[in-house]
Every structure is written in C-alpha cells, then in structure tokens.
C-alpha cells in the first residue's frame, strides 16, 4: 500500500536547492516514435506487417522474421510481472539520488517481455497495467501499475517522477477573469493543489464570478496582465520561486479573417496575449522553474499551454486567432527545448471550439470550460504532454497526422464551398 504523500515541509533557506539530474537520455531515432506516443499517453509497440509479432524496444527489423515492415500500433496494456528487483546502487546520478528503485520484467499480453519501472503496489506474479510516459529526460519509458486502483496510488514515489500531480503543489493560473480560469482554479483546488495563484488583469474592471473565485480554498488573487511586461516580471519576482505548475489560461480571440475588418489592431491584440503573453511568461517564470525541477515533493514540474487546435492549420473563420495560436504552438516547442533537462514538462492541450462568448455562433460540439479544466488536471495527474480535447480537435489532429496538406485544403476550401 502506498503511503499518502505528506505536505512538503517549508524549504530550508540554508540548504542549496537540489539540481535536476536526468535518467538516461539517449534514444535511437526509431525510438522517438515511442516517446512521441508516450507524450500523448499512448502505449505503442512495433508490430511486424508480415508475421504480426510485436517487438520492444524499438528495432529496425522484425527480430522474428527479419522483415523491415514494422509499424507502430497501439498495444494491449495488460501483462504480468514475472520478476522484480530493487536497485540499491547505480552509476547514474539520477537513480543514485533516488535509491532504492524497483524495476521488473513484465510479460506483455501483446507478446514481448519488457523491462519496466514498477509501482510500489505491484508484486511478483501480479497482473499489471502498463503505461508509457515521458520521464524527466523527456524520453518514453514503461511503468507497470497495479491492474486495479490501489489506495493513494498516485503518491507512489516512482510514479510521481513521471507525472505532474498538482497535489501539494503551487500553481499559477494566469487569467482568472474568465469562466475557464475560474473553473481551472476550482479543479486544481479539488486536486489538492496547496496554493493557487490566480492572475487578474485590470482589477479596475469588475468581472463575473470574482467573489466566488476568491472563496475557492487555496486561491490567492494576484495582479497579472500577460500583455504587460512589467506586470509579468513583478509577479515572477514575487512568486516565481514557488510556482511549481503554470497554467496559461489567458486568451484573446476574435472571429474573422484578415478581410473581415480593417487594420491590424485585433490581430495585434491576439498576438499580445496569445504569443507575446506566452513569451513574457516564459522569460519571467521559466528560469525559476527550470532550476527547481528536482526541488522535493513540490518541485516545479509542468507548464500548461491551452491552444486552439487551429494552431495546426489555419481556419479562416478565426483566421488571425488561428495564426496567433500557431505562433504560440511553435513557441511552446521552443519552451520544451529550453526546459529539456530540467524535468519540467510542457503540456499542450489543443482544444476544439470553446463554449464562450466569442465563439458563440459556432455549432456544437463544443468544449465547456469545465471540461477543459478537468482535462488540465487529468493531463497533470497522468503526466501527459499532448492532448487533443473535444471531437473537433480529435478530428483535426487525426487528419493533421494523416496529411497536413490535405487538412489545410479542407479547412480553407470548405469555407468557400459553404459560402457559394
């Protein structure tokens, strides 16, 4: 049984902050497909197109029939732990600092026998459920979990290395003026976040829900306007050293493309919030988070971006908004690169049309702010870096993976067809 995680003590100001160290980083180019799927929370294996046998780790050829036609496919997550051991020494600094560490051999229902990290509640001969996740190096690894939920399962020390669980962590929600920001603060409070700093821009303007927001346990209202460099820097000066998770809920969205209005101001406002806002937050908060990736049970662990799925391909009905999200999406990859080695994950949630006033005229299915908030918490708890939320987003991502050029045609020419 997993001991419930205790609230971390206050930091000793005389002790140097532990620097992030990393589990093994090297992977082959082939294995990157495993990592990319793990970042989405998917467990994939290479399956031979000729003899249908599955293989792990990633290989160039089928080890059974030597065929070159190996395809990555979602795999059965079931298996049985057939042997286990506890490591008590290692030449790898990351593992040395985390001894003892359990690993074991799992006979997968999908076929191969694999070496995996194992959850504390899994014993030899137990049925297990496999998860593939990115580790502190950002690389895909396997972990064997109990087949059925056990008490305090998420608090397992080794599992928590793969997740970004908000329990006992301090979170900054960058914009609490919206329903989305307020639902996010509530969801994080329910998930056990110890403090939830909620940024409010322009407190001289009233906003709906302000009283209820301030009453959410753990919520502290902070002045923050992501369009104002001084404001972002001032808040980072105050709480940058204790921001374990940052959830960027700020968004500026307006319907229309470039020909629906005169001038550049609307597009500029979108860029100021959606792109430069992210940039300002990165420059102010990412250095502190990067240094605190191994800072105990409430280490810095995640940066969450909420992006329109039309970041992947422009949808002219929201043409300039799409472009600003595309810029932010690109910048999120820069952030992932700059945080690589820190143990802080960049989580991108690509959402379909949101239930909010600027997207009022769009037909269902829509994503409610409540659903998006729940998805943020779920991605953090599971340590998943890439999520497509809602039927529209799932469909766009699927088509984007199939063929981005075809998706571009569909999104841009469908509108012309509808207009005619």
């Amino acid at each position, binding site marked *: 049984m997993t001991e419930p995680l205790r609230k971390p003590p206050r930091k000793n100001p005389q002790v140097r902050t532990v620097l992030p160290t990393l589990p093994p980083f090297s992977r082959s180019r082939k294995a990157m497909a495993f990592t990319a799927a793990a970042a989405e929370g998917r467990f994939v294996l290479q399956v031979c197109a000729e003899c249908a046998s599955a293989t792990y780790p990633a290989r160039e050829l089928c080890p059974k029939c030597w065929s070159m036609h190996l395809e990555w496919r979602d795999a059965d997550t079931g298996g049985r732990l057939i042997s286990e051991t506890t490591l008590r020494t290692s030449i790898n600094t990351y593992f040395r600092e985390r001894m003892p560490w359990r690993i074991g051999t799992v006979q997968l229902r999908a076929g191969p026998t694999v070496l995996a990290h194992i959850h504390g509640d899994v014993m030899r001969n137990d049925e297990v459920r496999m998860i593939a996740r990115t580790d502190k190096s950002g690389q895909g690894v396997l972990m064997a979990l109990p087949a059925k939920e056990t008490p305090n399962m998420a608090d397992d020390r080794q599992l928590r290395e793969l997740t970004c669980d908000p329990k006992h962590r301090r979170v900054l929600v960058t914009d609490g003026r919206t329903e989305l920001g307020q639902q996010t603060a509530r969801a994080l409070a329910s998930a056990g976040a110890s403090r939830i700093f909620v940024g409010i821009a322009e*407190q001289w*303007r009233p906003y709906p829900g302000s009283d209820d927001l301030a009453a959410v346990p753990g919520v502290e209202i902070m002045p923050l306007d992501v369009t104002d460099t001084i404001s972002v820097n001032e808040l980072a000066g105050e709480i940058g050293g204790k921001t374990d998770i940052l959830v960027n809920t700020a968004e500026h969205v307006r319907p229309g493309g470039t020909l629906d209005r005169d001038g550049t101001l*609307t597009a500029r406002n979108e860029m100021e919030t959606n792109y430069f806002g992210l940039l300002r937050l990165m420059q102010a908060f990412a250095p502190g988070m990067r240094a605190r990736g191994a800072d105990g049970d409430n280490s810095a662990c995640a940066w969450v971006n909420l992006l329109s799925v039309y970041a992947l391909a422009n949808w002219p009905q929201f043409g300039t908004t799409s472009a600003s999200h595309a810029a932010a999406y690109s910048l999120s990859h820069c952030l992932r690169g700059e945080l690589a080695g820190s143990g802080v994950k960049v989580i991108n949630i690509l959402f379909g049309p949101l239930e909010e006033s600027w997207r009022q005229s769009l037909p269902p299915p829509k994503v409610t702010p409540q659903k998006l908030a729940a998805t943020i918490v779920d991605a953090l708890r599971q340590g998943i870096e890439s999520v497509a939320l809602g039927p529209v987003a799932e469909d766009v991502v699927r088509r984007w993976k199939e063929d981005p050029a075809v998706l571009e045609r569909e999104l841009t020419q469908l509108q012309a067809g509808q207009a005619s």
Partner: protein
Amino acid sequence: MTVLHELANAIAGGDIETVDLTHTLDPDFPVIVLPPEFGQCARFRVEEISAYDERGPGWYWRNFSCGEHTGTHFDAPVHWISGKDLPNGSVDSIPPDAFVRPVCVVDCSAESAADEDFLLTPEFLVAWEKRHGLIPANSWVLMRTDWSKRSGAAYLNMREDGAHTPGPSGDAVKFLIDERNVVGFGTETVGTDAGQAVHLSPPHPAHYLFHGAGKYGLQCLRNLDRLPPTGAILVCPPLKIKNGSGSPLRVLALVDRSKG
C-alpha cells in the same frame, strides 16, 4: 522688467505655484472601456530597449506605446464625428494659444459624492457665477468632482448597466458653448461625458456638442482641489501628432499664491 520676466521670477520664487494636474502614465491606470465588439483604447505599455546591460551598457531607455486617449489626455475636435470636418481640428493644427488660457474650476465634489450620476446643469453654472463672476470667453472650464481620489474599480465605477460617473448635462454644454464661448472643458473622470451619457440626448453631449463647436476636452485630471475657482492659468499642450484625435499630455496650472 517685462511681464514675462515677472512671471518667470514669480514661478521660480514660489509666488506662482505650478500645480501638476496629471496622473502618472501607468500600465494599470484605467482607460475608457467600450462594448467589446468595438475597437478599444490601447493601455499604456513599456518595453526596455536597454538598461545598462548587454543591450546598451551605459544607458537606459525604453519604448512606450499607448492610445491617443490613454491616461490624462486631450481631446481634439476631430475625435468626434460632429467635429470631423472642422478646420484646425486635430492636435497638430490647433492654434497653440488655446493651450495656455485662464481656467475656471466648478466645484461639484459634494454633489458627486452624494450622486455618482450627478449632472452639471446650466442652473448650477449660473449659481457658481453668482459667487465667482461670469465665466470669461476663451477660458477653460474644469469640473471638479474629486473623482481622481478614487482608485481601483471605484474609478470607472462600472456596473452591468455601464459606468456611473458625473458629467455635464446637454444643456450645460450648450450654455458653455453658446452663452460663454469657452475654449474647452475638462474633468477628473475617464471622459468628459458622464458615465451614463449614452442615454442623454444627444448621446455623449460633451463629445458631440463641444467638438462639433470646435471646443477641446481634457480628462483624467487630478489635483483640481488645489486650484482656486478663478484666476489660475492652464497650460496643456498635447503632443503634435499628425492628424491626431488627441494625446496624452502633462497638464499644469499656474496659481497665484502671492495674496496668501
């Protein structure tokens, strides 16, 4: 000594006090908020170019950005549709003597404290004139409400039916144009019109009528409680922006303190 030398000596010696009527340009200072589907006034923003660092080792300077109507600012006639075709209606073409004029300060602070939607009327102005004399032609009239002492949400005082702040009635605006021929009208609130002025007839009378008559506006003023009802001189030159509808500016008042 010429009159200018006497003036300069009096300012330097303190017989004439220079009172600053300007709010600091601060990113978090309120601006007027229009319904969301309209274009919005830019907030004041600052980005460093360098600060004695690798971007410029020996010097500190910044870029700033804002709207023509951000912070303490000047409204030119072309700001409103009623003034769009007037000659010399933009900040760059207004004859500069208009920026240095006598100023009358009408104290409505008690009335505004009692009624946040207080409207300044011609009767109120006539009563004021009975105490302080006629408002001279070509002078500025400033409406003191002590609104500048409010901060945070109390300044715009926005509610679900819009802002609630004092301002002039349409008849008061007509009186100041037709009967007194003032050069302009200024307030401590975010606009020259009352918060609920969209419901007056005509809507936004201070903007519509003053600018239609070639008069100017000043708003987001402060320290009006430090000015005498009459006798001070207002100095308020806006930036010389080509075809500018207005501009943030430093507003000063020269107040004679020599008589105690």
